[in-house]
C-alpha cells in the first residue's frame, strides 16, 4: 500500500501537468526540508533535567544523560542514563530505533547487574512517570507518520507552517498531532497531541533554541502540558556537544554496564 502511494506521488511529480502540489505533498516537502536541515550531526551528548509537576504544583526531578548516534537510512541509536532519582541511579536504556519496524531496546538494572532486553511496544506509556510518552522522545523518522499541510499561522512572533501528522507505526497513543514549524529555520515550535478518541490531550512547547556547529538547532526547554489531567513536565537541556567521535561501539549492550 505504502509503495503504491509512493509510486503514485512520484508519478504525480513527473506528470507534465501544471498543478498546485497537494496538501499531502506540501506537508511531506516541509517535513523533508526540516529533516534534511538536521542531517550530518553524527553524534551528540547532552544532560537533561526533567521536572514533573502535578495539579497541586508539587514537583519531582529526574536527571538524565543522553547520547545519540545518527544512523544513515535508519533510526538513530540512543543511550540514556539516570542520575536522579537516586534509587534508579545507574539505570541505563539502550535503543536502536527504526522507522516502522519495532525498536530494539535493552535496560541495565544496576542492583542485579542485569542487562535485560525489553519490549518496545510500549509507545504510549509514560516515560518515568512524566507527561512525555516513550513515542514523544523517540528518534524522529519521516516514514513514521503521514503528513498533511493545514495552513500558515503566526505563532509567538514566528511565521509558521501548521502540519497534521498521523502515526503509521503500531501502538501509538495518538490519532494525530498538529505541528507548528517556523518558516525561517524549519524548527518545531509547538505540537498538539490528540488521543485515541481524537480529543486534545497534550501540548508540547519548544523554546530556548540554540544553534550548534552553525547548522543544528536544539531546543533547550520543552514543556509538555497535559490538558486532561492538569499535570505538566518540563525538560531542560544543557551541555550539548556534537561530533564527539562516538561510534557503533559506544552503543552496544555491553556499554550499558559501565555507564555512570
Amino acid at each position, binding site marked *: 500500500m505504502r509503495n503504491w502511494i509512493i509510486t503514485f506521488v512520484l508519478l504525480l511529480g513527473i506528470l507534465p501537468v501544471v498543478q498546485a502540489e497537494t496538501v499531502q505533498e506540501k506537508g511531506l516537502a516541509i517535513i523533508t526540508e526540516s529533516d534534511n536541515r538536521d542531517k550530518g550531526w553524527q553524534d551528540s551528548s547532552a544532560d537533561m533535567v526533567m521536572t*514533573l509537576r*502535578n495539579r497541586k504544583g508539587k514537583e*519531582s*526531578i529526574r536527571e538524565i544523560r543522553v547520547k545519540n548516534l545518527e544512523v544513515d537510512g535508519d533510526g538513530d541509536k540512543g543511550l540514556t542514563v539516570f542520575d*536522579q*532519582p*537516586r*534509587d*534508579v*541511579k545507574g539505570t541505563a536504556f539502550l535503543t536502536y530505533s527504526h522507522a516502522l519496524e*519495532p525498536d*530494539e531496546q535493552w535496560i541495565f538494572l544496576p542492583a*542485579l*547487574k*542485569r*542487562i*535485560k*532486553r*525489553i*519490549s518496545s*511496544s*510500549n509507545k*504510549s*506509556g*509514560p516515560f*518515568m*512517570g512524566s507527561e512525555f510518552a516513550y513515542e514523544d522522545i523517540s528518534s524522529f523518522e519521516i516514514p513514521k507518520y503521514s503528513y498533511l499541510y493545514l495552513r500558515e499561522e503566526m505563532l509567538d512572533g514566528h511565521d509558521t507552517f501548521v502540519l497534521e501528522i498521523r502515526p503509521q507505526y*503500531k*501502538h501509538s*497513543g495518538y490519532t494525530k498531532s498538529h505541528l507548528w514549524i517556523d518558516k525561517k529555520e524549519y524548527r518545531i515550535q509547538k505540537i498538539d497531541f490528540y488521543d485515541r478518541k481524537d480529543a486534545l490531550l497534550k501540548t508540547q512547547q519548544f523554546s530556548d533554541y540554540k544553534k550548534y556547529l552553525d547548522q543544528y538547532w536544539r531546543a533547550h526547554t520543552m514543556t509538555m502540558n497535559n490538558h486532561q489531567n492538569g499535570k505538566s513536565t518540563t525538560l531542560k537541556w544543557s551541555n550539548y556537544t556534537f561530533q564527539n567521535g562516538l561510534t557503533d*561501539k559506544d552503543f*552496544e*549492550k*555491553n556499554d550499558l554496564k*559501565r555507564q*555512570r
Partner: protein
Amino acid sequence: MSELKPKLQIYVLLVSAILVGIHIPATAGELSGYSAVEYRYFLHESPYPEPSQHDPSAVLAPEYYHAWDEDNQSLIIAPFFRWDSQDSERTHFDVRELSWLKVSDDWELKLGVSKVYWGVTESQHLVDIINQTDQVENIDGEEKLGQSMINLSFFKDWGTLDLFVLPYFRERTFPSTDGRLRSNPPIDADKADYESGAGQHHIDAAIRWSQTFGNWDIGLSHFYGTSREPLFSPDRMSQKGLIPFYELINQTGMDVQMTTESWLWKLEVIRRESDFETFTASTGGFEYTFYGVLETNIDIGVIAEYLFDDRNVNLTSPFENDLMMGTRLTWNDEQSTELLLGVVQDLDSSDASWNLEASRRIGNRWKLSLEGRFFKVGKPETPLYFVRDDDYIQLELARYF
C-alpha cells in the same frame, strides 16, 4: 529485657546514623549508595527454640566510583554491611565490589572483586554462576557475594566473548541457629569441605559468548571449578549438623530470549557434570505485557515459566517439575510503584510457594519496599520443607544518597 538493651542501643544508633545520612565530601570521585531499615515479621512461631517472630535489621551499602583517563579507567568500591537483630550469621560484612576497569576500543579488562549476571528467566537463575549466593540476605537467590576475578572481554562483530579467571572461592552464607529460614539439622558452614585439595583456593575459570541476532539474544557459557551450590553431608563428629560439601563441576549453560512485540520468550538450560552427580536443568517460559490497560497508565505483565531438574537427590533443588506463574503490575507513576506477585507450584504435589514484591518511591531519595514469602509444603523430601513455618512479610525503608 536487660539483655535486649545493648542490642536496642546499637539499633537506635545505627538507625539514626542511617536516617541522618552520610555526607562524606566526594572530591576525587563520586559517592552514592543506600542505607535501609528492614522489619521482617514471621507469621508463625519457629519450630526451634531460639528465633523470634520479629526480626528488625539494617543495611548500609555505599559505593565509591572514580574514573580517569577520559573515563577509560575506573575504580569502584562497594562494601555492604547488614546488621540483623537476631541472626549472627545474617549480620555480615561483604565487599560487593572492589575493582579496576580498563576500557579500550573492542576489549575491556576488569581486575578485582565484582558481580556478573547471566540469564533471562525470572523464577530461578540457573545459568548465573559467577557469584556465590548471599543466602542470608534473601532466599530468592538474587543477592550475591562479591567474587574476585580477572575478566577480559572482547567485543567483536561475531559477538561478545568474556573470559574469567576466578581465583578465590566464596562459601554460601547460611543462617545461624538463632535465625529463621534455616534447615534442620542446621548447616555448619565453618566445617565446609571441598572436593579439590586446594579448597577455597582452587582457581575456577569461565567463558561466555553472547550475541544479538535481530529479535534473539543468545548466550552460551561454560564454567569449570568449585560448585556454588553445595551438597550436604551429616556431621559424623557432632551428629548434630549438616556440612556443606563443594564439589568440582563442569557446567555448560545456554540462555535465549526472543523478543517480539509485547512477548518475551525465555529459556535457560544447564548441564552440570561432576564425580558425584550429573544432571540437566532448565527454565523456560514467557512474559507478556498488556500496556496501558483500560485507558490508564498501568501495565500488566503475565509471566509463566516451567522449571525442570532431573536430579535424583531431592534435597538439592526444590524445582524438579514446577510451574511458576506470576503477574507484574507497573503503575508508571511519579513514584514508580510496582508490584510482582508469583507462585511456584510443584506439579507432583500440592506444594507451592508464593512471593510478593512491591515498591514505591517517596520523594527523590526514599523508597518503601514490601516483600512477602509464603510456603505451603507437605512433603518432607524437599528443601522447602525446612522453611514451611517461615512465612514472612517484610517492610523496608531505604534512603538513597
